[in-house]
């Protein structure tokens, strides 16, 4: 087993990985950029290496500095977390070249799954269903033929594309030609290539993904699915295990799980990975892409299956065999996770970095909190707005949701804005409760996104406290060692109010 592991990441995932490493008796090396000098992952690590200034490109994405730090501190392995260099095959290769174990899949598997089109071909070859499409450039005639075969709506995409540029939805044959013209010219402007291909458009799809886990000896299992349909700006905000759809559909988990395993094995995959599927309204699933790393939302799978995915990642990277078979994987109850972001849900989900002036965390039965922040810390504006992942477990989905609502009520963050209140609104929606989810859910159901109206009595209480607080003077905001019960009396401030 490794003696020391460098975690090439920051925030909650760096903290989460360190926790397991500590439980394994393995030393931890953090890396940090200037604004992260006092970040929680640095404070919690055994050792810490500075890797550059704020911008990721000059710190967390600097392979050379990270590998140099690993060597200097004598780390045997690097855990990349998610994001940053985690799906960078060159980084994995550079680790290997430096004699440091990359805790993840092989370089070849990252390459095979790293390109969306290559992954699609791998998945197809392995017999996994993919969204019908040409994946090759298409003209008007080809487009017309495709639409006739698969039906409308279809989606035009730039071959060289990304970021939504050169994309056009087409709903009927009459719009075909003009849409192709528009898409091609937009693609030409954006990517200097007018090539466009076509895919069947899946309306109101669910996003459901399968966790797989394989060792370097050819064994592979799936750990079931996660439902990740609740998204804002194409980013997941609520995830569940199991998916209410899959749970209700006999055989679906095993079929998707086997499809995921086939696709991963076709790429010679090992370690933890996630195969993402789109699921249409008839419960047909289509391979979307594979994430060749630990997923943000892995805790819901851990809560339901009882495994520690990070421990298994580390053990597998060290050469261990999978300690269980597919038959031994068992699912118990239901888990839900909310991604707590520093953002304003009532102002277009705009980010809201800054000083955390107050932080009260939920606890008690069935709560798991993975966070990377603390009171008094300045959430930097350079990185992702993810502050914490609040996950809960319950015997059933209904109980898990009730528990999440309870936990959200105990969670208080001030100084910055968060989406905590927004989660309470979603979780109380009948359609969410019924498990009728799709990736456009938030747009559709919370189009207006207003903060809920407080009960009238709350305004009375707020007014009373504001008056007392104002009268007591600002000094009341300064912590004091006076016993709580006598805070008024000792301060003598109460008198001023008469």
């Amino acid at each position, binding site marked *: 087993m490794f003696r020391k592991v460098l975690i090439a990441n920051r925030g909650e995932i760096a903290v989460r990985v360190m926790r397991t490493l500590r439980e394994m008796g393995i030393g931890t090396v953090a890396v940090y950029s200037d604004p992260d000098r006092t970040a929680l992952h640095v404070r919690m690590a055994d050792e810490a290496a500075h890797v550059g200034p704020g911008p990721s490109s000059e710190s967390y994405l600097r392979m050379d500095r990270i590998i140099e730090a690993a060597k200097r501190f004598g780390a045997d392995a690097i855990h990349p977390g998610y994001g940053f260099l985690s799906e960078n095959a060159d980084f994995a290769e550079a680790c290997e070249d430096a004699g440091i174990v990359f805790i993840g899949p092989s370089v070849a598997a990252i390459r095979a799954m790293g390109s969306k089109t290559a992954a699609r071909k791998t998945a197809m070859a392995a017999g996994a269903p993919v969204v019908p499409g040409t994946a090759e450039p298409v003209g008007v005639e080809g487009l017309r033929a495709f639409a006739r075969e698969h039906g409308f709506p279809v989606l035009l995409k730039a071959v060289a594309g990304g970021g939504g540029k050169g994309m056009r939805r087409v709903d009927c044959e009459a719009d075909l030609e003009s849409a192709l013209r528009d898409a091609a010219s937009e693609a030409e402007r954006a990517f200097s290539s007018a090539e466009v291909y076509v895919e069947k458009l899946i309306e109101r799809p669910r996003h459901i993904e399968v966790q797989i886990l394989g060792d370097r000896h050819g064994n592979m299992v799936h750990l079931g699915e996660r439902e990740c349909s609740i998204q804002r700006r194409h980013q997941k905000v609520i995830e569940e295990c199991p998916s209410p759809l899959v749970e209700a559909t006999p055989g679906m988990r095993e079929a998707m799980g086997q499809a995921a395993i086939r696709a991963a094995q076709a790429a010679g995959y090992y370690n933890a990975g996630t195969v993402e599927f789109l699921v249409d309204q008839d419960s047909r699933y289509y391979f979307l892409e594979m994430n060749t790393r630990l997923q943000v939302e892995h805790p819901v799978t851990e809560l339901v299956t009882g495994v520690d995915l990070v421990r298994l990642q580390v053990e597998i990277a060290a050469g261990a065999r999978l300690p269980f078979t597919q038959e031994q994987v068992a699912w118990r109850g239901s888990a839900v996770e909310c991604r707590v972001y520093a953002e304003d849900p009532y102002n277009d989900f705009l980010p809201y970095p800054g000083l955390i002036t107050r932080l009260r965390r939920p606890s008690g039965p069935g709560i798991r909190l993975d966070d990377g922040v603390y009171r008094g810390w300045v959430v930097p504006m350079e990185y992702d707005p993810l502050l914490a992942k609040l996950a809960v477990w319950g015997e059933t989905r209904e109980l898990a949701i009730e528990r999440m609502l309870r936990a959200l009520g105990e969670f208080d963050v001030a100084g910055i804005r968060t989406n905590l209140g927004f989660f309470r609104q979603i979780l109380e929606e009948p359609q969410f409760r019924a498990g009728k989810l799709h990736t456009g859910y938030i747009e559709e159901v919370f189009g207006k996104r207003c*903060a*809920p109206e*407080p009960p009238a009595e709350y*305004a009375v*209480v707020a007014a009373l*406290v*504001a008056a007392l607080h104002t009268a007591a003077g*600002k000094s009341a*905001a300064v912590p004091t060692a006076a016993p709580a019960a006598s805070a008024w009396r000792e301060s003598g401030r*109460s008198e001023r109010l008469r």
Partner: protein
Amino acid sequence: MKLTLEINGRAEEIEILSGAPECRFKLGAEPARDALVEIAEPGVYSVLLDGRSYDVYVEDAPGGGLVVDLNGHHFEIQARDPRAWSRNAAGQGGSAVQSVLSPMPGKIVRVLVAAGDDVVKGQAIIVVEAMKMQNELKAARAGKVLSLTAKEGATVAAGELLATIE
């Protein structure tokens, strides 16, 4: 003691008839009510009103006034002593000047106009970035750039004035 409060924009008169912890108060023309109020932690008040328990968090707002949080609900409150009360706030408002405010805390990555420039409606004025997200601030209507305090590379707070357009 009487105070005029502006709660989420609405004015309320409150009179504290007797102080904490056994507090009697009157809100507007409502009958007097009794509450037990204790400081649990600095800035955290425990209120018992008609037997109901409220955990109330108070903070100074960055722009003055108070922010009061209660069971996930958010109140922005300005407190004024009636003697100090003046209607100067009402003086703002109907101005013809358009203010361009930062919608979030962040960094100014681009300033696309100069003071004195004419802009058309919807024209991008300034780009603010935070947490890998760029936000283009646009002119709400046509006009001339009066002032431009935004500087590229500068860090700005949410609601900070970046430019004015006449």
